[in-house]
């Protein structure tokens, strides 16, 4: 039974990955948006690094501080509209075609979600490479890169629920796109641009619960200083909790739609 589930999820995952990477626009927007952010903000806020409290967390330049934040951002954006793909196949009848084959219905959903790990990790990797080219450090070397990509990929899979739940509940691509905007402030409130110590008190409280902040705070040391296992552990827990909550909701919404 489990073997059948993995077989189906694997092939459905390969199909979904192919479907994603064969749309050139997916590459363009996902890579260029963080790139522009990385380039523009590293120039715009160049001198912000002079503020007291920045030196400790930054690597000496604002680019070094910003780059890990942009990787977190990329993981966020990589899956911001991920729920629309399953919706398109629901609407055009392809999901019915799959439902009429002798497979577990949950394999359809699992096959959509699993490749998001790869998609997110690849995109995070692209931004990482570009940051390094622009001069950001990567202190922990190849080992740190792997941890960074794994954390980003896991975060992408978990966070995808914020797109899948509205998609499956509203059955509307437009509604899914509009609702995803609601999550954007969560990314902008994170420590991508400014360290927590420089934020107003209430924002600091919010960030104590912000999953993107947990991700960024785990990957920043990997780039600017060294392994911070406590931060990595917190990020893994945050991603796991987030994943369980969001994916349970996704599974519920999927069963409601396709059972």
């Amino acid at each position, binding site marked *: 039974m489990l073997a059948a589930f993995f077989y*189906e999820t694997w*092939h459905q995952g390969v*199909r979904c990955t*192919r*479907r994603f990477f*064969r*749309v050139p626009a997916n590459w363009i927007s996902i890579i260029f948006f963080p790139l522009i952010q990385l380039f523009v903000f590293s120039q715009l806020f160049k001198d912000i690094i002079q503020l007291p409290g920045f030196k400790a967390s930054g690597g000496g330049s604002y680019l070094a501080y910003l780059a890990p934040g942009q990787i977190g951002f990329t993981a966020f954006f990589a899956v911001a509209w991920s729920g629309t793909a399953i919706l398109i*196949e629901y609407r*055009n*009848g*392809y999901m*019915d*075609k*799959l*439902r*009429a*084959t*002798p*497979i577990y219905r949950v394999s359809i959903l699992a096959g959509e979600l699993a490749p998001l790990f790869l998609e997110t990790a690849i995109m995070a990797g692209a931004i990482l490479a570009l940051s390094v080219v622009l001069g950001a450090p990567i202190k922990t070397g190849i080992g740190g890169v792997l941890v960074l990509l794994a954390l980003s990929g896991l975060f992408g899979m978990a966070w995808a629920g914020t797109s899948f739940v509205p998609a499956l509940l509203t*059955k509307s691509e437009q509604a899914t796109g509009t609702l995803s905007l609601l999550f954007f402030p969560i990314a902008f409130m994170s420590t991508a641009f400014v360290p927590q110590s420089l934020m107003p008190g209430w924002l600091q409280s919010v960030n104590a619960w912000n999953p993107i902040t947990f991700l960024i705070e785990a990957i920043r040391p990997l780039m600017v200083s060294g392994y911070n296992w406590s931060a990595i552990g917190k990020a893994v827990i945050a991603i796991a909790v987030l994943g369980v909550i969001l994916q349970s909701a996704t599974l519920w919404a999927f069963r409601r*739609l396709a059972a």
Partner: protein
Amino acid sequence: MSSAVIEVADLVKVYPGGTRAVDGISFRIEPGELFGFLGPNGAGKTTTIRILATLTSATSGHARLAGFDVGTHAADVRRRLGLAMQTPTLDTFATGRENIEFIGRMHRVPGAELKKRTDELLELMGLTEVAKKLAGAYSGGMKRRLDLACALVHGPQVLILDEPTEGLDPQSRTALWEELERISRQGTTMLLTTHYMEEADRLCNRIAIIDNGRIVVEGTPADLKAGIGADTVTLQLEAPGPEDLARQQTDVRRLLEGFVPLEGLTPESFGVSLAVRDAGRAIPDLLRRLDGNGVRVVGLSLGQPSLDDVFLKFTGRHIRTEAANEPISLGWY
């Protein structure tokens, strides 16, 4: 255990909101048959098919496919079923070959056999040359054929096709008909729905006319048409003015008095139209009666009853007039 491949008894589907899409349908399809559901949009054809394909549950009644109950043995039903829906459903970002192979894998067709089977189907459907192109770039006819290939990849015992030629140009439609006839000759049992009379007439060895969720009549196309009775003979009359036309029409009525095969006469703007039993045989005698009596026949046409006449007889409506009233479907209900 019966021999029927599809067996449906008292099937009812009531959607939330109270619509009775299927209202007590029963029928049997024997092995090797090509059975057609003929009816206007919204008649309940698609809902019946969705129940048989395990995509929707019935409110009450029974449906068995290959001996398995569609409600309780869905996986057994799915393994034996090939399904092609009203619009081709393809992964548009996968190539033709990838589309077929993916569905084959979901049906657990073993690797080597899958390759061979995919090659055969691509060849059969005339898609070998475009096998490496994305399905999204295919023409309408090619998408249909690819969809059909996907439905056939696991060698299903039963093929269910919902409006298989909807939206195709006449050439593609004829080509697909030939394809379906060939598949049927190879022994696959088929159930198709259509609202094209010609399609039901040409393809199906048995049809059920379905309207408002019920089967109104069932039989072979020939029997159903024979049940209508009279053929239609239209006579075009040459007349200089309306008075002259009226006089000729009265003359025709008088001259044909006592003509046994005649069952009805209707004056028309172009002449008259007659309901005549076994018109092929009766026409020479009919024309002899009219000849040389001031009736100037300049055109004659003979119409045999169509399935539309059958539909009209049993429902009181023409099949096509309903199409525009189809409600927009927003989801799965």
